């Protein structure tokens, strides 16, 4: 086997050194009644080319573009990834290294993540950002646990317009803690009903997502004021990081912690993962942050360098008192996001975000003109909720036969939005594709 370099001579020479005859003698410390006597029930080894053919066939059994027009976002977005990002990210010095516990040997990863933290903080309008989390949902759950630690209160409120899967993950993380989770409904405008917050006392955090699950742009400033007036923190979530190329940043509107998904920033959808949990906060909460942080320092000659820092928050030092159990995070995905943000630049990200918005508005207006119901009146970014003439669900099935995935049916998550769907448009959708969708919807 090509991954196993030992020749028979190597094996016998090495066994000789350790004073054994057979390879199986190496397992003398394993008692007989702990040994597995059988053979693993697995397929026999495949050659590289047979494997490539086999997996290649599986990869063909997927409904993807260009064969399909996919107007589906809901937390996983189709953005163009520059060839430079994939190419640079594939450099094996980045790919095959590990957590930089020995910083002198891993300055590439460390400077790269320091830059990622910086660009992320700038994107979100915050002061510090962590090195990465698993995904937007776990970042949100960790942000809320962080708010509980900071405020020493045991109750958090989540907007119902937060991605339903994110709320499920938060529920999973909170289930064994005894902390209370409340849900805040949304209004006919598609925005969170912030007035409800006035009835609730002693919240650790108020969590809203903007743009929210329906694509609607929340009033974060109002949310921050409401949260702060009751002594709670505002945790601002997001699933579409590109939006902040155009929208006001959560930090500039008063968010205390920002947590969300960075998949849009140069990371393939890859059937949902790996993606990128982004988490940022005000500097005053820095020591309560979960996960890895890279900091700047100097070497013995006074030269700039980077290290993992504030490790006393972390599990390998603090064990059960750590701010999180996280160890491996999604470092390579964070590096991809940094490469993508660097490729776009400040000028580029604004243009691209505006283009995304223009395209989504084009489809929204065309559908409205064609007689479709646009469910919410609030301004949206990239996504919007729609009903089709003659019913969304029936039309959705018919469009699948025509190789169009017309968004995400919402009934399973929001019974009150049954027969509605969440449509998504990004810069990769052409006007022709959108026109075709409109024609098919009204055909």
């Amino acid at each position: 086997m090509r991954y196993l370099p030992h020749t028979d001579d190597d094996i016998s020479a090495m066994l000789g050194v350790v004073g054994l005859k057979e390879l199986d003698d190496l397992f003398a410390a394993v008692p007989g009644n702990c040994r597995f006597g059988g053979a693993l029930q697995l397929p026999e080894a495949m050659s590289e080319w047979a494997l490539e053919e086999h997996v290649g066939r599986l990869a063909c059994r997927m409904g993807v573009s260009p064969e399909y027009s996919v107007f589906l976002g809901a937390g996983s977005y189709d953005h163009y990834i520059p060839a430079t990002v994939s190419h640079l990210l594939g450099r094996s010095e980045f790919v095959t290294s590990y957590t930089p516990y020995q910083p002198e040997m891993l300055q590439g990863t460390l400077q790269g993540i320091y830059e990622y933290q910086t660009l992320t903080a700038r994107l979100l309008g915050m002061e510090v950002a962590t090195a990465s989390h698993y995904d937007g949902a776990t970042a949100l759950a960790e942000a809320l646990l962080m708010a509980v630690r900071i405020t020493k209160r045991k109750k958090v409120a989540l907007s119902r317009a937060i991605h339903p899967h994110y709320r499920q993950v938060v529920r999973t993380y909170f289930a064994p803690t005894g902390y209370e989770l409340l849900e805040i409904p949304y209004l006919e405008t598609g925005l969170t009903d912030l007035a409800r917050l006035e009835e609730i006392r002693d919240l650790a955090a108020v969590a809203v997502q903007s743009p929210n699950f329906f694509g609607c742009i929340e009033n974060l400033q109002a949310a921050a004021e409401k949260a702060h007036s009751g002594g709670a923190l505002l945790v601002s979530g997001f699933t579409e990081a590109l939006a902040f190329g155009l929208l006001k940043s959560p930090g500039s509107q008063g968010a205390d912690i920002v947590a969300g998904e960075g998949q849009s920033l140069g990371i393939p959808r890859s059937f949902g993962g790996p993606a990128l949990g982004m988490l940022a906060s005000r500097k005053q909460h820095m020591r309560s942050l979960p996960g890895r942080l890279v900091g700047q320092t100097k070497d013995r000659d006074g030269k700039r360098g980077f290290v993992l820092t504030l490790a006393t928050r972390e599990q390998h030092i603090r064990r059960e008192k750590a701010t999180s159990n996280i160890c491996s995070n999604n470092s390579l995905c964070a590096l991809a996001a940094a490469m993508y943000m660097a490729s776009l630049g400040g000028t580029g990200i604004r243009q691209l975000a505006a283009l995304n918005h223009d395209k989504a508005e084009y489809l929204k207006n065309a559908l409205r003109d064609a007689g479709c119901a646009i469910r919410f009146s609030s301004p949206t970014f990239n996504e919007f909720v729609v009903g089709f003439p003659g019913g969304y669900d029936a039309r959705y099935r018919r469009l699948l036969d025509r190789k169009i995935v017309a968004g995400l049916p919402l009934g399973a998550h929001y019974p009150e939005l049954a027969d509605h769907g969440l449509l998504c448009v990004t810069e990769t959708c052409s006007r022709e594709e959108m026109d075709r969708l409109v024609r098919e919807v009204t055909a």
Partner: protein
Amino acid sequence: MSESIGTTGLILNEPLLWERGKKGRCGFSMPAGDVPPSPLPAGLTGDGPDFPDLSEIEVVRHYTRLSTWNFGVDTGLYPLGSCTMKYNPKINEKLASLRGFAVAHPLLPSEFSQGALRLMFDLERFLVAITGLDAVTLQPAAGAQGELTGMLIVHAYHRNRGRQRTKILIPDTAHGTNPASAALCGYAPVPMPSGPDGILLPKVVAGLMDGETAGIMITNPNTLGLFEANILEIARIVHDRGGLVYGDGANMNAVLGVVRPGEIGVDILHLNLHKTFSTPHGGGGPGAGPVAVRKDLARFLPVPRVIERNGTYELSEDFPESVGRVMAFHGHFGVLVRAYAYILSMGPDGLKQVSRLAVLNANYLREKLKDVLHPAFDRPCMHECVFSDRNQQGTGITTLEMAKRLMDYGYHPPTIYFPLVVHGAIMIEPTETETKEDLDGFIEAFRSVVREASENLGVVREAPVRCKVKRLDETAAARNPCLAG
């Protein structure tokens, strides 16, 4: 000694991203708009982030130079104990980036995701075969999230039986993630000393395991590189008193095809696909931490789960007792593809040979170093060997300094100061993919470092001198944190 592979070459400086570039440049192929502009109301828009504007070649040079300051498995021997830094096959990278997978949306209707679902279903079956357990979730994103998922299952199990428990037994050799994961579920970790031979004694477990204790978290082989030979007896004690046995599979690379955890009393086990199953570590992830469980615990696994019906696959959330969702979608699918490809490349015999050779390499290193470094335990090891700094005490040299000096010889240092129970621990895990010649080079380098410690202390204390930077001041970094530029 023969010529060291560590040497100096031309190392280029490279500024921070925002110290480069000029306003107006762009490294992105911006498409022309084919729709009319539709500005948002002014009150909603901001100034946009203050990013530097760079051209394509500036981005390429920046990251290419950064990469040359990094050391990976593809560069050389990376014997970081407990991390299983084995070779990461290149075909797996190619397969994970196949267009059908790379652009697949996670919420497509099942009939349009058959390839991915079939792969996940089969990978679950492979992991069932390897662990000897009955059901698997692939959703957890990394080992620590696998542990959390396992602890959530323990929590759900006890709640389901009508009485929650408050504590969990964790050996003093455990990874820090174990107590941290248990604490997230409200369990107070009870530290358990290992016996004089470095393994757990049943009587210690019997003395601590009571009706308030939810179970035990046990890593086998443990972080001293020793097989917990009393595992069957320990599991019996824990089960008799109503607890569950959680297996931390971080060290599974030692026992593939040799031991199946499900057959030695383990009820729940996580695997690290980025360790045992060759997926790259990525400078700190993404990994994947699937969890395998006994049949009667399968109902608690996270949703959605992949099910098969008449040859077609679908995702089902219809498991009312599930602990819920632990990730937004289906876990790190791209990592799963790589592990699936690895298992198919190795086959059953190949996987067993992996563990034999991993254990051979570790014992060979141990034998060749044991006259200069003090083995923590005087007995053969499994996939990693652990030394203490006893031989170096009085010489003025520390474990940290030896580790730094190894860099100058061209090797990534081993894990140091872990496990905590060994003074000045040096934990070496070579993995099976290293050649005898590379091991010999590492052995020679380490012996040379030990010799330098008595002959030329200054050169060791100065190390490293061949990296991009010299010894970095970690204390200053923590005292005055500068986390963004």
